[in-house]
């Protein structure tokens, strides 16, 4: 059973990473990030169950909280982006270059 769970986790992370890399819409990037975090979180829970140690599950609670706040910040940024440029396409935001 463990292997299947791990494969699912890995898939989730891979899907999320791919999304982050190829998508240009900021909202989708945020969602992909969320998927990655969930992949990692799933691994935490599974391992905790498998090793019989609760701390992994506790850890996931923290991760979930962080993910939620991160989403909140991310969405706030998205709103600001839209206000500034009227788009949420991340390729329009490359000011970091200079």
């Amino acid at each position, binding site marked *: 059973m463990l292997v299947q769970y791990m494969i699912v986790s890995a898939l989730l992370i891979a899907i999320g*990473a791919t999304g*982050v890399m*190829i998508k240009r819409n900021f909202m989708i990037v945020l969602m992909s990030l969320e998927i990655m975090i969930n992949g990692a979180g799933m691994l935490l829970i599974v391992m905790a169950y498998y090793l019989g140690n609760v701390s992994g599950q506790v850890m996931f609670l923290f991760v979930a909280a962080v993910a939620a706040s991160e989403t909140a910040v991310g969405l706030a940024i998205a709103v600001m982006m839209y206000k500034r440029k009227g788009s949420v396409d991340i390729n329009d*935001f490359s*000011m970091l270059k*200079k």
Partner: protein
Amino acid sequence: MSGILLFVVLAPLIGFLINGIFGKWTKPYAGVIASLALATSFVLGLFPIMSVLHGNIVEHIYYTWLPFKEVVIPFGLRVDALSAVMLFVVTFVSTMIHIYSIGYMHGDPGYSRFFAYLNLFVTSMLLLVLGNNYLLMFVGWEGVGLCSYLLIGFWYEKDTASDAGEKAFVVNRIGDAGFTIGVMFIIYYFGSATYADVFPRAEEVLNSTAATIIGLALFLGAMGKSAQFPLYIWLTDAMEGPTPVSSLIHAATMVTAGVYMVARSNAIFSMAPIAQEVVASVGAFTAFYAATMALTHKDIKRILAYSTLSQLGYMFIGVGVGAYWTGMFHLMTHAFFKGLLFLGAGAVMHSMRGLLSIDLMGGLRKYMPQTAILMVIASLAIGGIPPFAGFFSKDAILAHALEFGHPIIWVVGEITAFMTAFYMFRFVFTVFYGEEKVPGLYHDLHTHEAPAVMTIPMWTLGILSMVGGFVGLHIGGVVPFEHLITQIAPNTEVANEAHYSETVLIGVSVTMGILGILAAWIIYIKKIITAESIARAFKPIYTLLANTYYVDEFVACCIVKPFWWVSRNFLWKIVDVILIDKGMVDGAGWLASRVGYLLRFIQTGFVNHYAYWVSLGVIVLSGWYIVKII
């Protein structure tokens, strides 16, 4: 005695401090204060001198000056026969010249400064002479150099004076380096620099090579201070200083320090025949070479300066051939008559408002009878005419040179003696005899005899120039002066000492002197042959001599200028600014900023690209980890 001895050195120092710090207020009395300080020093100095004449050595150590682990240098003063002679000469001549300066420097804006410097000079000179070790001698050695620098540049607003002062200091520093090296070798071999430790052990500690190295290094120091070829170039420029300074420092005392030092180091020099040979040869060459330049010069002070060089050469012949007492003897008599000559020249300048060229003078005898008589006495002394002082000392040097096996040096010395008499009487005849060359000049300048405050010291020195040589007479089979000095500085033992008839030697010397005077008389008084016709006949030689062999020009254009040019244009502007600063240092900064510039292209600003880099990093790292596990 220890307190008295210390106070001999301290008295002029106190005078210096009073005039130096409170100069603004002591100005009217500065000369008197300084002279009193010196007179105190002279009178107190007589006590140790008397003790030395009774055959003692007075030595006191006051405190430990430099306590190094390898060597301990005390601050101690020592009076033995050598330093007693110097102590007497220095304090006596200084006192006379101080008194003379009261009149000579009267009305100068730097009156108290002048006397402060002079007192400081005497302090340093006494340290040089009385110090009981080489390092204390070096303190005095540099101290007199410093005072010489300050006094040559006394009228600092004249750029020639400032330049001359600096030149004197810098050239002397070349010699000082030699002195330092010599001292370090001595410390290296003996573990001490104190005379009492060094000289008695010299024969067991040193081998001939070591003695030669030490001797040559010390002689380099002596060459700088005593202005021997080729380090003599500063002395003629030093005439920019006030005339009492030229008299005291650049004739009577400081420049003879080198001779004293060689005589002091006799134990080392006697072991090093090569070094002795060098000393005597350089001395002989300088004596001859400087005398030739004195033949044609027209500046009264520079004639005397070249003459000083020449006489210093004689002294080095004396100490170089190993008859140290003759060098010291000539040092003493020279201090009297050359001091007097400069004071006379000063009196002339004083009454001529600073004019220096002999072309403007003539017949001054009528206006300055006392000075004229004194100058004739001094010239007879330097010309080696018996029974004046210079005759005895010069004859002693030349006789010993011949007897100790240096016939060539003897010949050179005799020729120089002829030239000496000639140029001195050229000086006397053109300045004091004959006709006035510029009509009405003396009237316009109010030329007059010097005041008593100046003539009395001159007479004192004049009398000593007449009788000072008698200490070199045979009295009951011994020469008193030789007996005194050889206690400390015994003659070098020469394998096959030659003996010549004394009468013949004296005859030759006196003939040379009289011939010189005669030649001057023929040319400058009788004008049977005029000086101009001789100059025309030997034009190339005359030009060379009149331009003092172009040595100053050579030094300026071939040593000083290239040196500055290389420093400025190569070392500073190219090596320092461009290569090291711009190239290496700023180059490193430039490189860093270039690398940063290149790395900047990784920063595209697109978030996806950063994500690529992150994943790439993850893949590489985990890949590396996996490979490592497998």
